[in-house]
Each structure stands twice: as C-alpha cells, then as structure tokens.
C-alpha cells in the first residue's frame, strides 16, 4: 500500500514537471499581454481569443500553414507508400542486407541538416525548382522514407514468420499475404513509426529555413515571431506554439480511425 502511494507520488510529480510548461503555454495563449508579463503570475484572468485571431489573421501564418500541410502530407504519403513495403521486403526477402541498409538509412540522419541543405540548394537552383513546395517535399521524402524504413523493420520483425507461411499455404499470393496478414499484424507498431515521422517533419526547421524564402513552413513562421519588433508578443508566440502542436494530436486520431476502418474492410 505504502509502496503504491510512493509510486503514485512519483508519477504525479513527473507528470506535473512534464505537463506544466505545456499547460502554462496553453494558459498564456488565452491571456492578454498585460496578464502575461505581470511579475506575479495570475491564474484568474479574463480569457481572450485575440491571440489566436491575431495569429490566424497573419498572412505569413496562413501561408505557412498551407505549405506545411501540403509539404508534410505529401512527403509523409510518399514515405509510407515506399517505406512500409521497403521495410517488409528487407525483413522477409533480404535479411542479409538488413543491418547494412538500416545503418545507411540511419546515417542519413547523422548529418547536420545544413550540410544536406547546401548541396540541395545548388541542385534545385540548377533544376529551377529552388524555393518551391516540390523541392521541399523531395527533401523531406528522404527523412520520411528513411525513418519509416528504420522503424518499420522492427515492426515487421515482430510478425511471426509462420503466420505468413500459413497464409501462403492457404493459396494467398505474396502481396495478399503482405496486405491481409503482415500489415494488419504490424499496424500498431507502424502507426507509431508514422506518427514519429510526422512529428519530425512537421517540426523541421533548419532545412526549411535554408531551402525556402517564399514557400516557408509553419515552424519557420513561428521562429520568426521571436524576432518581431521590440516588444516580444508573448501571447502570439504562445498561441502559435499551441497551434503548431495541435496537428500531431489531431493526426493521431485521424490516422487511427482511418487505419481501423481500412483493415476492418480488408477481410
């Protein structure tokens, strides 16, 4: 009993430490600048939507949001389309290549983003596609494909080989075995992989900063707020932080529902 209590206390303390900054940000996003900057923090205040209205009314935010949605959506889609089958193929058909490929894929992420960005700028400029959504999508695909492969391999390794063998003995083709057996069994782990990848590209700042000046993404816009004028617009920063953090949560719900429906229909 005592032990359980001790555990609970630790959990509460940890949760508080983790969530407090988030809660504080959320709270502050509804405060007026006056309420935010008072030396004694207030818990009771007149909530306002003004910060959100200001943020959303900013043309650069609207532009960044659209760009982010398109760029992240496309690169994540391509990453899933290519990365998931690639991970499966590695596990089942080229296990001898697995460790080399995984290391290669991981090594793509060792490099500082700027080191990747500079050669890309040169290439994209030559091709005439520098500072477009397309070039950003192309660059992010590197991240999404490699991350999904990297996390997809363990997901498919958890699928017992025998159940795939059983399905192939029942006459199913390799693709059907993949779609009806391997994929549904691996999906809980794959969802984690996809979410993780989404968060990485959604929050990506450095490459976007280097590759774009017109077609910037939301993190670039958010970063620019901190240098807007003399008076730091805390309320707007807080509101934009919350807005930036919201999509990953929404995304979890949407993707779960979609995948559930997809696989319920599959058999």
């Amino acid at each position, binding site marked *: 009993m005592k032990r359980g209590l001790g555990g609970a206390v630790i959990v509460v303390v940890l949760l508080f430490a983790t969530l407090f900054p988030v809660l504080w940000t959320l709270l502050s996003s509804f405060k007026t600048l006056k309420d935010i900057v008072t030396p004694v923090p207030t818990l009771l205040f007149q909530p306002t939507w003004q910060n959100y209205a200001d943020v959303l009314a900013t043309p650069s935010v609207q532009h960044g949001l659209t760009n982010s949605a398109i760029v992240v959506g496309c690169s994540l889609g391509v990453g899933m389309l290519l990365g998931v089958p690639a991970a499966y193929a590695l596990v089942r058909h080229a296990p001898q290549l697995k460790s080399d490929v995984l290391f290669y894929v991981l090594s793509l992420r060792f490099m500082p983003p700027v080191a990747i960005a500079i050669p890309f700028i040169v290439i994209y400029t030559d091709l005439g596609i520098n500072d477009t959504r397309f070039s950003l999508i192309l660059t992010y695909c590197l991240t999404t494909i490699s991350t999904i492969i990297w996390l997809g391999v363990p997901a498919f390794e958890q699928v*017992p080989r*025998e*159940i795939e*063998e*059983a*399905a*192939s*003995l*029942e006459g199913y083709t390799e693709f059907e075995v993949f779609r009806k057996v391997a994929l549904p*069994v691996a999906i809980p782990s794959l969802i984690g992989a996809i979410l993780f990848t989404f968060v990485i590209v959604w929050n990506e700042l450095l490459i976007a900063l280097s590759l774009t000046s017109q077609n910037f993404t939301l993190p670039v816009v958010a970063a620019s707020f901190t240098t807007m004028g003399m008076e730091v617009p805390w309320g707007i920063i807080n509101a934009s932080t919350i807005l930036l953090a919201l999509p990953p949560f929404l995304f979890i719900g949407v993707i779960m529902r979609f995948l559930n429906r997809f696989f319920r229909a599959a058999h």
Partner: protein
Amino acid sequence: MATIDIEKFVKQYGPVRALHAVDLHIEDGEFVVLLGPSGCGKSTMLRMIAGLEEISGGVLRINGKPMNDVPSRDRDIAMVFQNYALYPHMTAYDNIAFGLRRLKVAKPEIDRRVRQTAELLALGAYLDRKPRQLSGGQQQRVAMGRAMIKTPQVFLFDEPLSNLDATLREQLRVEVKKLHMLLRTTTVFVTHDQLEAMTLADKIVVMRDGHVEQIGTPREVYYAPASLFVARFIGSPPMNLLPMQVAPNGMQLAADGLVITLDPERAADLHPGQLVTLGIRPKDLRLAHLQSGTDRHSATVMLTEMMGAETLMQVRLGNTELIMLVDDRDTAVTGSTIEIAFAPEGLRLFDAATGKAIASRRISRVA
C-alpha cells in the same frame, strides 16, 4: 489424393546439415508418421514438403511431378504448425474460414463448414475470440480446424496434439484417424509420441539426427526394430537390452551367469566371440511354467507395478535388471524368487559395435 516421392533430401542450414540424403516414398492415401527425438529433423522435412524451406539437395515429387520450384501456395497442401501460427488479428472463426475465402466459396457454405468443423473440435463457444484469448489447447484445435476444413492433396501435421490434455488428445487422435479413413488424404504427421505414431500410422518413419533409422509398419518397427536406437525408442515399457557375447560353440549367448541357447537358424548369423546386444520385449519374458521348451532362469522380484490388466515386474537376473509384463493374476510378491524364461520368438539380436539388427530380415518375416 497424391503420392509423394522424396529422393535424397538434404537440408543445409549454413554449416549445419539437418537432413542427410533422406529417401521416402508415400503412397496415395497413406498415413505416414515421422517419429524421432527432438531436433532429428522432422519439422524440417515437413516444411520442405510444404515448400516453406528450400530444398538444399534432392528432389520432391508429388504425383510424379517435380515440386522443388513450385511455390507453397500452388502445392495444395494444408499444414498444422508446431506453434499453431494462428492469425492474431482474426477471430477463431476467421482463422478457420480464411482459406475458404481465398477459394471464393459461397458465404453460407463457409459458415456451414466452419460450424461443422468447430463442432468436431469442440470449439463452438470460442469462435468469436481472438487467438490470444484462447488457451494453448484451444489454439491448437483452431489450427487443426484451419487445416481440416479444406480438402487438399496432402495434410501435414507438426505435433498437432502435443499441447492437449490426455482426454482431449485421445479424442482428437481418434478424430484425425476417422477423418483420414473418411477422406483418405495422403497425410504426413510428425510426433515424438510413439503411442500416437503406433495408433495412427500406416507407415512409421523413425528418424535420428537427420537420418532415417527405419521405415516400416507399426508392427515392423515394434517387433523388428532395425537398430538399437529404434528398439530403445519404441515400446513402453521399453525393450530389455542385454550386452552378451556369443559362446565358443556359437550356439549360445553368455553374460555373467546368464546363458541363453539360440535356435540353429538364428545362431547361423553369428560367429563365436562376437559381442551382441540381446533385446527382448517385457511381454516376451515369461513365467517359466507358462513357457515350455526353453531354459529356465531364477530371478528375484524387485518391484511390481499394477498397470491395470497387466502388471509390470522388475526382476533381477544375475547382475541384470529386467522388466517383464505379466497378467495381473500371475503377479509374484516383491522379494520372492521366480522362474522365468525367454520366449524364443521374442529374441532380437543387435551387433554391439554397429547397433544394427542382426538377421532382422528373417525376423520381420516372422513378424
């Protein structure tokens, strides 16, 4: 309906050779049991037949057609896996129906057959559960159902009854037998339970370390084991095995104090001084007054175990302990001295050096 021909099967796992040039012919409709201790290559052989394991050497023919390069989905084989291999994301019902759906069987027909199979396997109440909500035995029965619902050319079973309690096991063994008598589908069944092998098999293949030790009917492997290994492996209680030497006259076997006279025909295969192992089934050690015309030996009863209609007696003869199985009415009290005799038709001889049976051909004719 299918014949299976296995020619010089070799399986190589890197440096490890799991099968050494195994030959086996299986008749159409035959029920063949692969029997052997753990690690002898039974599952490997089954998986090669199913096309799940590459054939490193040799040829597999089904109905005379080479199958080495045919993928498993085109071999028309149903298999029960040693570890069940149920689809974890499907209910028991869907697990059983999955194969039929592929064959585009009509829905009501699938439903009828699934329920019929579930009935047979006493699974009716569990059809809506996912595999992880089922006990080991229930999972095993779902795996059986998944195979049994189809009418393939060949059934492969990899120890399908190993996880069941005694009653269920016996019940399902009978069901497997009935199913086979009904459908006459060529079947290869792996087990390390010799009773299962004896009761089910038309033909038993005894395996050891990737080699075939003996192929024969249950009677042949029981009465005429081809080697000491088979003799030890088959039979419960096990065969008595006594190291002996052929006497100078060539007509008798001797081991400290114990002398056994052989009939001339048997003795012709031996030479004086040869070291042999004498094998005799517990049932062929008789009380002397029930066996006329052979040498009698005095033995002391060490232990008796009532096993129902029969009693197992452990007796000491000179320096050797022997097990005999007698009618319960003939049981002697522990500590008493009895006269026993070796039934001549039950004597089996093995070369002590090679472990191979001597003159097993002649004996198998007797059996």
